[in-house]
């Protein structure tokens, strides 16, 4: 079923407009600025969630604006997949924005941070709610470019260099996306996301288009060997921005890949032409390399960034395996990783905020000083490792089963190996923080526990609570939505 409703564009437009409003008012009142920023994310979230009933009634909401950007036309679309990812993104964005209102107090150029954060939100929501490739591309660029401002926020030489690298790669990615969009349009005459894929011939051009998508989305999603901007950019950005980048923005790459795989090329084509093999291989390399390099990093944010690379590999693998369960795993991991990585970055940010310690080896005894923060960190880290009742386990489980469905035991082993590696790089941190001889020593120094503002603590705890509890709810709507999204992608494919 399909209904047309312009309400679909509201989650995009409201932040877009609010970004302008924030820019206008921020010089007058910082309170207004902060609350408007939070409002933007909240509004986005509510405007998405209000469609819950409609969506769950198997209805896709669309809004078409063919007069924009002819001959392609702009269109928006809210289906299961979009709804799920949009909800996740806007919700985490809301929490991170609340967090940042406290975190950013110590930073400079706050007046620049907030409008661009909200603008990036608008871009991300636009990406998720877009109904065709050109709209997708449009908002993709908006998001990427405004994220640049978040990355170089510190404006140090390192940040500028990282930002430049990000920018160049982003532009290359954008251009290869554009190329693919053009190629698809030339072949099929339209670029809207169509259940079951567009009628494309298997030609060299189609393959080039696929490669273009792979490069474009791969750069954003941090796929090896296109990931090199990621470990540079994340450490230099302010922690809330890292959380947004790593937790949410990377997902748009994977999201795009899902859209393209299932709704542009279509399942049948992907199965015939064996492009999935390349995708799988790249994903496997990504998983391994990300996890392995993370072990060697001492800067906490770099370690988390490499961990993101590895985790994005899971999602890419889930997309590339082309089985239902693998896709459920991938979509669910979008959700899971968004929450886990955001809370990890927020916790790391809180620690840097109150102690200034960026190096992993310096985290001795932090568990005593900041028990709540470190608990959040621990919960998220264990979830990354895939400890059962936590959210990270479920996606791994589904992914592994999907890999088995595709007949590749090797990928299951890889997943497990990567889990072990996750454990190897997260555990020493937790261990240092809570246990060991140094801890008792550190505990003697009387400090107030978790000397953090509520606006920083609450979002972290909320994220951790979701990680901890969502699988224990009697009705796991996240998984339900991921499953429905997958089935909708698959059933229409047949």
């Amino acid at each position, binding site marked *: 079923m399909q209904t047309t409703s312009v309400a679909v564009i509201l989650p995009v437009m409201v932040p877009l407009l609010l970004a302008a409003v924030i820019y206008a008012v921020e010089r007058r009142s910082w309170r207004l600025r902060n609350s408007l920023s939070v409002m933007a994310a909240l509004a986005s979230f509510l405007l998405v969630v209000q469609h819950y009933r409609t969506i769950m009634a198997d209805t896709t909401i669309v809004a078409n604006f063919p007069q924009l950007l002819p001959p392609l036309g702009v269109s928006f679309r809210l289906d299961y997949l979009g709804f799920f990812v949009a909800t996740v993104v806007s919700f985490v964005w809301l929490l991170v924005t609340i967090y940042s209102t406290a975190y950013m107090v110590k930073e400079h150029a706050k007046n620049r941070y907030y409008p661009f954060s909200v603008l990036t939100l608008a871009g991300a929501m636009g990406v998720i709610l877009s109904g065709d490739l050109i709209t997708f591309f449009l908002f993709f660029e908006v998001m990427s470019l405004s994220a640049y401002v978040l990355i170089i926020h510190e404006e140090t030489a390192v940040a500028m260099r990282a930002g430049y690298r990000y920018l160049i790669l982003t532009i290359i990615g954008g251009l290869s996306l554009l190329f693919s969009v053009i190629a698809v349009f030339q072949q099929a005459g339209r670029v809207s996301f169509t259940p079951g894929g567009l009628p494309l011939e298997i030609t060299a051009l189609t393959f080039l288009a696929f490669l273009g998508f792979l490069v474009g989305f791969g750069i954003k999603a941090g796929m090896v060997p296109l990931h*090199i901007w990621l470990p540079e950019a994340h450490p230099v950005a302010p922690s809330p921005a890292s959380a947004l980048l790593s937790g949410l923005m990377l997902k748009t790459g994977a999201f795009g890949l899902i859209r393209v795989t299932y709704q542009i090329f279509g399942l049948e084509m992907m199965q015939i032409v064996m492009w999935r093999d390349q995708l799988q291989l790249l994903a496997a390399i990504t998983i391994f390399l990300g996890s392995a390099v993370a072990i060697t990093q001492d800067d906490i944010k770099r370690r988390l960034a490499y961990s993101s690379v590895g985790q994005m590999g899971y999602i890419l693998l889930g997309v590339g395996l082309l089985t239902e369960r693998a896709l459920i795993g991938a979509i669910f991991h979008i959700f899971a990783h968004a929450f886990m990585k955001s809370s990890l970055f927020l916790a790391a940010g809180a620690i840097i905020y109150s102690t200034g310690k960026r190096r992993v080896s310096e985290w001795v005894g932090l568990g005593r000083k900041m028990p709540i923060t470190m608990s959040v960190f621990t919960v998220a880290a264990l979830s990354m490792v895939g400890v059962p009742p936590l959210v990270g386990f479920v996606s791994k489980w589904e992914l592994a089963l999907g890999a088995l469905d595709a007949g590749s035991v090797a990928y299951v082993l890889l997943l497990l190996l990567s889990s072990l590696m996750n*454990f190897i790089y997260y555990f020493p941190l937790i261990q240092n923080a809570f246990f060991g001889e140094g801890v008792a020593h550190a505990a003697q120094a009387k400090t107030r526990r978790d000397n953090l503002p509520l606006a920083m603590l609450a979002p972290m705890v909320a994220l951790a609570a979701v990680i901890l509890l969502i699988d224990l709810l009697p009705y*796991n709507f996240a998984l339900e939505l991921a499953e429905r999204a997958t089935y909708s992608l698959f059933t229409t494919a047949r």
Partner: protein
Amino acid sequence: MLSLDLLLLVPILLPLCGAALVFLLRAHRRLQEVVVVSTAFLTLGAVAAVYHVNPGHRLELIFIHLVDFGLSFRPTHLGALFALISAGIGALVSLYAMSYMRSSHSQTRFSSFLLVSLSGCLGVFLAGDYFTLFLFFEIMTFAAYPLVIHDEDDEAMRAGDSYLYMGVTGGLVLLFGILLLVWSAGTADIVPVLDRLQGGAVNPYLIAIIFLIGFGVKAGLIPLHVWIPHAYPVAPAPATALLAGVMGKTGFYGILSVLAVTLSSSLPSQEVSALPINIGFALIWVALLTILGGAVMALLQNNVKRLLAYSSISQMGYVMLAVGCAAYLGAKGGLPYTAAVFHAFNHAVLKAGLFIMMGSVYLRTGSLELSKLGGMAKVLPLTALATLVATLSVIGVPGLSGFGSKKLIQYGIDKAAAYHGEPVLAWVGPLFMLGSVLTVTYLIKLYYGVFLGSYRGRGFSAAKEGSIIPAVLAAFAGGIVAIGLFPERVINMMARSATATAVDFGMMAEQLGAVKLWTASSYIAGVIPVALGVVVFLAARRYRFGTGPVPCWLSVEALLYRPVTQGFLRFCCNYVTRVEGGLCDLYDRGGSVSHSVFRRVKKFDDMLGEGYETAQRTTSLVVEQARGLEQGLGQAYDSVGQAAEDITRRIRNEAAGDNGAAGQRPEMWNPQNVTLGSLVVAAVMLMVLLVLYTVGSRIWQ
């Protein structure tokens, strides 16, 4: 509607709630202790209720939506039995811990995680499918970590690392097995699925081996045991008791479920599969290795707890041996099955008891090195007595608990050796005997070293035992004696648990009927190893064997795990990082290459300018040359014209003389062939070229 099934949740949630309560009450020591102990005992009560209800009314509790795959609790009789044992040991341990840990730091952490691990263990035993089992397995693994590293010194942290890395790896291997099982059998329930696995995409042997490895880590099968001798000694005595008494059993329980339930056929009419037989055969040898290896290593130890840790490994080898026999015998394996369960039960009680007793010693002396102990019998008579009982029981002296189970295992071995006519199995009996001898030896070493002789330490701590510790010790000793005195009852209980599983052990009653425990021959059979053990001990003492440090080449860890792990990490750190660095390099180089390309293009720009200039110069040159050529041509034309005139004149002259040659005029260049248009065009084209080449003339560059 409250259903009886909800009873299953109580033993799992109660300790969790207790843990939370302990955490909240961290300011009130006394209250905390009360909460811990009462929680443990309430849990025991709940488990007892479950055990009581279960045979008649098969309890079942399923939560479809929890954690993706759904959680289910459906304890088998065996599971309920082990849950009962675990809860019992847990209760005693918590009671003991209150007194033992009183002067320690971080009591809150210890107590709460003790309860959480207990909950995890109970969850494992009560789980209805592997998925749930795995979930609680992991909870248990992680929750026990703070118990292991409680002392937080370097040694403890290292041991904790070893414990946790092994545990996590084992967990992941287990997960792999579960995944394969779920995928090929379509269900994770603990039900017979062998017929579904056969002919599937995954080799059932693979699944079986993976499960063995996964659970084997917890059970301490050699060569997967390496964490045990690290973790047991450093943990506080109550924690060790829990680890050895309860957690080790989860591994055993898992292996038993896999071999006896999952990898058995649900269709009795079908051909007996070779898989359990082969796996059982292999397991027998692994178990023998574990028995002997553990015993030898125990003999070499000089630290009491480490000795007990190896002893624990060795004893689990006995259990596994019985399991192997049971699998090997298939449907006729009722007896070894019972033996395995019985011995596991015994071992749980004995090892927990022994660790607790040694804890008491430690409380007084502050050391557990054999070289610093001795003569404790005078100081701690009750402890010495309890330890004696426990030790003798482990040795297998008739009238104590270990006797019955060992006897049963021996029967099982005999049956297995006879069953398929595998001649190699004839060696199992003697090797088993050797194991027993070694056991006796190291236990004598232990008891002699600790309680007899004279004290070699520096004095005693002032800590008072209080009244709780003796009570707990007494409870353990009493239990051991009670079981030893009435083994048939216990055996029947165990046998019931065996029959209650899905496997049909047809000849169970018959087999058990044939077992004669209280005969003279069995007494003698029980005494022989003791005698041999004493001899060996004396010999070893004479030659001072096993008092020095343990040779490092005996350590599997040093031989296998450490190189592999370090190799892998080195691979990660060096090569992958180098690859990563190479990638970054590549990009940077790409950047610099494009920069240099740009520079080249810039140079091209300059060259373009020069090119224009050269072209212009060339044009001038060409014009000059053309002018020269023109002049030359003009001269040539002139001379040609001159010559032509000459010729014409001559021809005319000749024609005047000779008319015959008039028609043969030479073919000459015909100007009519050249149109004016083409001349114009040629000129214009030249001009176009000129335009192209001289547009940016030298001046205007």
